[in-house]
């Protein structure tokens, strides 16, 4: 099960008891707060446990009832149903992570490839600052520029005579997609820039000499060479966006549950309203299984192609 081929060559001199003792503090943390929660989610999803109220302390087993309610064909696709939230999450991930972060990051990395001027510095610095600032700070910055009367977006649209929609009311999902693309494209851009820097410049020079256009070089040379980086990047940004809670800071899932992605849906189910831990855990279990599937597929790919994750 070695992940890296050079594993066996690193000589080992710590005796097993010593190394076990050194591993212990970290292992305890991971077991208590990562592994146990994974198992506990599955267990709670089979009960009627609540945060407060009659079923907080004296809960009972309910089998697969919570799942039956999630997947009830009569309600699951209607507003507030599990399928409704799942579909919103899929839209959010495809538009903001795949098209937004990964594609924008790749476009920026490629168009700025080989440049060293002030333009590259400016784009990189702005994108990185957008990426590292705390969630709450950038969420409020976006609430400000999305403001219906005074926000920068509508001031610009008004000056062009294009109307001034109330973004977070009429186009809340679109606003979240733009926000998340803005927030996270820097990671993809940095990853693809590093991968591009690893391509021998002679490859591209040969292509230029033989008369390939910029688009042809990108499609026939860069895309195949970056395959590993693209898979790694897609995998990470999909996982992060699928699990993020940040949309809550902008919309709280509203208006009328039109942006209630799975993380917010779980929160509303378990920590508000009916305080239903059992059903919330069933939602989390589905998310965990999707995460697990993505992780396993990716690790299989990494081991097959001997990539460094």
């Amino acid at each position, binding site marked *: 099960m070695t992940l890296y081929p050079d594993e066996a060559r*690193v000589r080992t001199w710590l005796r097993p008891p010593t190394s076990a003792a050194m591993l212990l503090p970290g292992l305890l*943390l991971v077991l208590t707060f990562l592994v146990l929660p994974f198992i*506990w*989610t599955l267990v709670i999803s089979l009960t009627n446990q609540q945060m407060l109220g009659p079923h907080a302390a004296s809960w009972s087993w309910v089998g697969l009832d919570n799942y039956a309610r999630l997947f009830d064909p009569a309600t699951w696709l209607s507003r507030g149903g599990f399928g409704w939230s799942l579909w919103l999450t899929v839209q959010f991930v495809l538009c903001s992570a795949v098209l937004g972060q990964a594609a924008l990051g790749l476009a920026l990395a490629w168009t700025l490839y080989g440049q060293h001027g002030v333009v590259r510095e400016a784009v990189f610095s702005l994108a990185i600052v957008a990426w590292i600032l705390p969630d*709450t700070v950038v969420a409020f910055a976006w609430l400000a520029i999305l403001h219906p009367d005074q926000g920068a977006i509508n001031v610009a649209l008004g000056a062009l005579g294009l109307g001034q929609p109330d973004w977070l009311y009429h186009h809340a999902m679109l606003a979240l997609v733009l926000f998340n693309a803005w927030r996270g494209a820097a990671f993809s851009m940095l990853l693809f820039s590093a991968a591009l820097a690893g391509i021998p410049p002679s490859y591209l020079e040969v292509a230029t000499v033989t008369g390939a256009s910029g688009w042809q070089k990108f499609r026939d040379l860069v895309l195949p060479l970056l395959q590993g980086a693209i898979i790694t990047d897609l995998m990470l940004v999909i996982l992060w966006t699928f699990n993020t809670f940040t949309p809550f800071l902008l919309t709280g899932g509203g208006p009328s549950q039109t942006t209630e992605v799975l993380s917010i849906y779980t929160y509303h189910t378990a920590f508000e309203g009916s305080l239903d831990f059992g059903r919330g855990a069933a939602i989390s279990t589905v998310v965990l299984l999707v995460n697990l599937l993505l992780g396993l597929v990716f690790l299989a790919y990494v081991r097959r192609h001997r990539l460094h994750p």
Partner: protein
Amino acid sequence: MKGSSLVGRAAWAVFITLVVVFYATPLLWVLLTPFNLNASPSIGVPLPPTLANFRLVFAEPYAARSLFWNSPLIATGVTLVVLVSGALAAYALTRGAIPGRGLILYGLILISAVVSGPVAMIPLYVIAADLNLLGSTLGVILILSALLLPPATFLLRDFLTGVPRSCEEAALLAGASPLGVLRDVVAPLIRHGLMVVGVWVFVSAWGEFFVPFILLRAAALYPASIILYSYRDQEGKLWATRISAFGLLYALPVVILYLFVSRRYGFRFFGGYRG
């Protein structure tokens, strides 16, 4: 610049301009509004600039406490726990004869990809309640440490594989204990890595909203992220004033640390994953 045609270069210029405007607009609001006497959701040049908005922030009951005590306490605590337990684990995993080491590594990557904070909100709440960690800063520190530990361990492991073994062997011959070798020989050799990973952990913990939002219920314990979020319901001028001034103070340490790391070490490790 790719296509030599005029059209290609014009398209490139338009694309880059749009990207710069897209990125700069929200950041301009963050930067300018706190100094504007008429702070509002619109972006205005503060002429003349004023510090009155910051005075308003410090008149809020828990603002200073969250910025100067609660958030630093959580971020520093998480950084210490992750660096110590992560360095020990990474050292054991690179130098130790551990049966099933490959399996442990594989499991660590997988579990950290699968279990994020939000997906585990219910069991984390239940486990914290069982361990009497609900409403406690220690609980927030331990849970955040666990979430950040696997990637930090992997980064530290990369730095450790670059340490020449001869140094350790010399120290062992001189009679040093394994812990002594790690502390006195290896740690100084990877201080660069400890610094970069430490900054990454600190910045992540500093910006964290979700875990304290779920676990903490007393305003006196709230970190800056929660206090800032609590200003959202205020109206009109107050909204922009407090949010922008508090937000800038809260964001400042992150920007300073970023500048420090990128000046000294370059930025390429900062995402927690190597490119």
